[in-house]
């Protein structure tokens, strides 16, 4: 089969303030081919796809489409060239029909260009769906379809632009195995029609089934392109992880007692979490690793009662506690530090004192009246103890840097005297220097006897900080490793155990 080259990228680079997101990356795609891009969280996969689909502009490098150098300044140009992207989060209008969604913005109008020509729209959609062998009613309301069918609508929409490149970003992340199979059938139809598919997935075992080639990127850099038939999952994982593990820092040997502070038993929720159980010891940092969407944040929110659980019990010091809402968790001494500090952690338009005492206001009041002076005093203590860089406790929190904002949130929970702290991505959005300070602070807190759950998507951070590493995949806990047994390869292996037959390992 003579295949023409559809896409060829060479030397593509993209820099964001302070981060080199892509550095000299290459990639190519042929007609009738499915080419996967894999890499860890933050490796640069989405940045690359956003450059291809015109959402970001590349800083350097060359993109050739059918042999011609092209610029893709915006999404319209990408579509005009014939590059369509199906995002992980579907971009459909739930109240419109299948046909209306497919042709949104390109509706046929009746003569006079005022009224829509719905019958023609439906006819065209019917033809398109038949061509793709999709069993969908063009008049069905999209919001009433299953996620899998909605995704088919996205695919039909992508194909309707009559482009030749279709990018799929984590298309199977919310599909059942049967639905995944039917997606693969559609992909094969597209292949047969000579389209090129760029396939992004965390599910490595899928790659063998559907892809022709696999390109690995790591830390924004091109690593290698492999023929699917000539490689194996372990090889792909080792290329994804790359770094020499012995370079990474590990926690110094701390003496962690056997005292179990918190026991979580069989937590499930309506959407994702399935029967998650673990124990947290006094003075321990328990890292939670996993891919995006593995359910780590969901687990934290379920534990503190921010989202409903369908099942599961929580024991503190051996006694069951009922946690139905966040105030119950706080009363029990569990503090949650969200990954999204600005949305879930801080009162940005208020000052440091206000933020630091927010969880402990009853302690700073008498008969309903606030006592500002002790509150300001405690805040000054927090500022000096955590080395918050601020002119005074009256500073608005929005004027602080990310690292200092994080310290304010930590100060809030220390003021509340929480014994258990759940840190969700404690160093996200914090620059490198401040990261070290946060690490030292976490270690110090653990040494003082606080028990810490640390959710992180950065494996070096997990390995550096955690006494034990819990790994989650698709809402289940797939393994708990002692730090000395843990390495990046093992964590990735557990983090990609999507099949159900694997049991929980302790």
């Amino acid at each position, binding site marked *: 089969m003579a295949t023409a080259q559809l896409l060829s990228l060479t030397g593509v680079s993209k820099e964001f303030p302070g981060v080199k997101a892509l550095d000299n990356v290459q990639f190519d795609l042929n007609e009738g081919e499915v080419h996967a891009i894999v890499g860890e969280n933050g490796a640069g996969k989405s940045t690359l796809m956003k450059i291809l689909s015109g959402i970001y502009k590349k800083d350097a490098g060359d993109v050739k489409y059918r042999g011609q150098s092209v610029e893709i300044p915006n999404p319209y140009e990408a579509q005009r060239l014939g590059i369509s992207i199906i995002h992980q989060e579907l971009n459909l209008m739930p109240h419109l029909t299948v046909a209306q969604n497919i042709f949104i913005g390109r509706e046929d109008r009746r003569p006079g260009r005022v009224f829509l020509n719905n019958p023609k729209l439906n006819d065209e959609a019917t033809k398109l769906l038949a061509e793709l062998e999709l069993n969908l009613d063009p008049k069905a309301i999209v919001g009433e379809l299953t996620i899998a069918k909605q995704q088919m609508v996205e695919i039909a929409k992508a194909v309707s632009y009559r482009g030749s490149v279709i990018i799929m970003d984590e298309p199977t992340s919310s599909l059942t195995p049967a639905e995944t199979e039917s997606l693969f059938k559609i992909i094969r139809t597209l292949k047969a029609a000579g389209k090129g598919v760029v396939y992004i997935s965390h599910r490595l075992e899928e790659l063998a089934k559907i892809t022709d080639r696999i390109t690995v990127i790591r830390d924004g850099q091109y690593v290698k392109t492999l023929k699917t038939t000539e490689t194996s999952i372990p090889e792909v994982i080792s290329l994804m992880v790359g770094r020499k593990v012995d370079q990474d820092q590990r926690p110094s040997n701390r003496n962690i007692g056997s005292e179990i502070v918190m026991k979580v038993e069989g937590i499930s929720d309506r959407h994702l979490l399935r029967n998650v159980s673990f124990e947290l010891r006094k003075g321990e940092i328990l890292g939670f690793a996993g891919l995006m969407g593995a359910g780590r944040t969901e687990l934290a929110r379920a534990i503190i009662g921010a989202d409903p659980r369908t099942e599961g019990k929580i024991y503190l010091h051996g006694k069951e506690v009922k946690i139905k809402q966040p105030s119950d968790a706080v009363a029990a001494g569990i503090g949650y530090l969200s990954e999204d500090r600005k949305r879930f952690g801080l*009162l940005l338009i208020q000052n440091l004192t206000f933020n630091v005492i*927010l969880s402990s206001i009853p302690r700073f009041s008498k008969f309903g009246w606030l006592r500002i002076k002790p509150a300001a005093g405690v805040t000054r203590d927090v500022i000096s103890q955590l080395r918050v860089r601020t002119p005074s406790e009256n500073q608005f929190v929005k004027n602080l840097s990310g690292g200092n904002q994080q310290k304010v949130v930590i100060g809030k929970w220390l003021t509340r005297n929480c014994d258990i702290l759940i840190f969700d991505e404690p160093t996200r959005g914090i620059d490198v220097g401040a990261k070290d300070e946060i690490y030292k602070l976490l270690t110090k807190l653990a040494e003082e006897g606080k028990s810490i759950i640390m959710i992180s998507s950065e494996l070096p951070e997990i390995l550096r900080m955690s006494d034990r590493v819990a790994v989650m995949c698709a809402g289940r806990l797939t393994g708990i490793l002692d730090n000395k047994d843990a390495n990046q390869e093992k964590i990735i292996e557990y983090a990609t155990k999507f099949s159900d037959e694997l049991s929980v390992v302790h």
Partner: protein
Amino acid sequence: MSDDLTTAGQGEGGSKVSAFIRREIGRVAALASLVVIFIFFTIMNPVFASWANVSGGILMSTTVIGLLAIGVTFVIITGGIDLSVGTSMALVAVITGKMVMAYELNVWVGILLGMVVGGLLGAVNGILITVLRLPPFIATLATMKGAQGLALIISDLKPILFATDVKGWDQIAQGNIIPNFPNGVLILFVAAIIGSLILNKTVLGRYNFAIGSNLEATKLSGVKVNRWLVAIYALCGVYVGLAAVVITSRLGSAQPDLGLGYELEAIAAVIIGGTSLFGGKGTIGGTIIGALIMSVLINGLRILGLQQEWQYVVVGAVILLAVFGDNLRRRRAGDTTV
């Protein structure tokens, strides 16, 4: 940025005059406009500045809207809104009137009753918003219509006359504990001071700002947000009840159809006073100044002989100017949080 670094936060610290002005610039600007408008009308017609006009004309006509506006300030600082205060006031007036007449209650019990009934109506709003999770706009739109209807039903469409039957009821607003100073105005000022203390010195006030700044973060900090929201809407209702008592005292009757439209005047006063509709920021002092600006304008324009329809247009323009000026000032200060 150095300016920002010295800016003091809500309600504490900042003893320096410059820091005070920077922190309170919204209120300072509102107060300055009030003074300028006042001087303008005085120059145009000295009668305007006479005590008779100031107390009887301007201050007295601010009492009802002012009390409602204090209540609404609490709600708006949570990031919510209360459209029901006007018609709730009519409903409280009618219920209180009926009870006072039926059980021959004395004035003090009557006042207390009005505030309790108002508080209960406010709590209903709070429950609709927290338990049924209705948006405040929708919940209070519904109770606004409900209260309007119930006031008419309970009163059988007829005003309830107090004046001759309840001894001293007229004195609540129109008497003079302080010579030459109407009690109604005294009630407004005392209620404003109490409101300001609640907002700035109590736990409730602190949670009020916290909820308006970031409801989710407040909830995750362990605050029982729903309970406090109900309390805040109930507090708003207490002020509505007090407004109902004052308006019945001034009119000598409970008018079941008087109240619709007052909610928007109250909200306008709050906004002119510099409270952010997005929540988290606001002062009672600003609200009182906002209410006074509106009364001064209406009163002054009337003295100048401007027709009522043009008075409305001017008030509309003032609302636009006040908010636009606030936006400009904020944008210059680099404040992007709206």
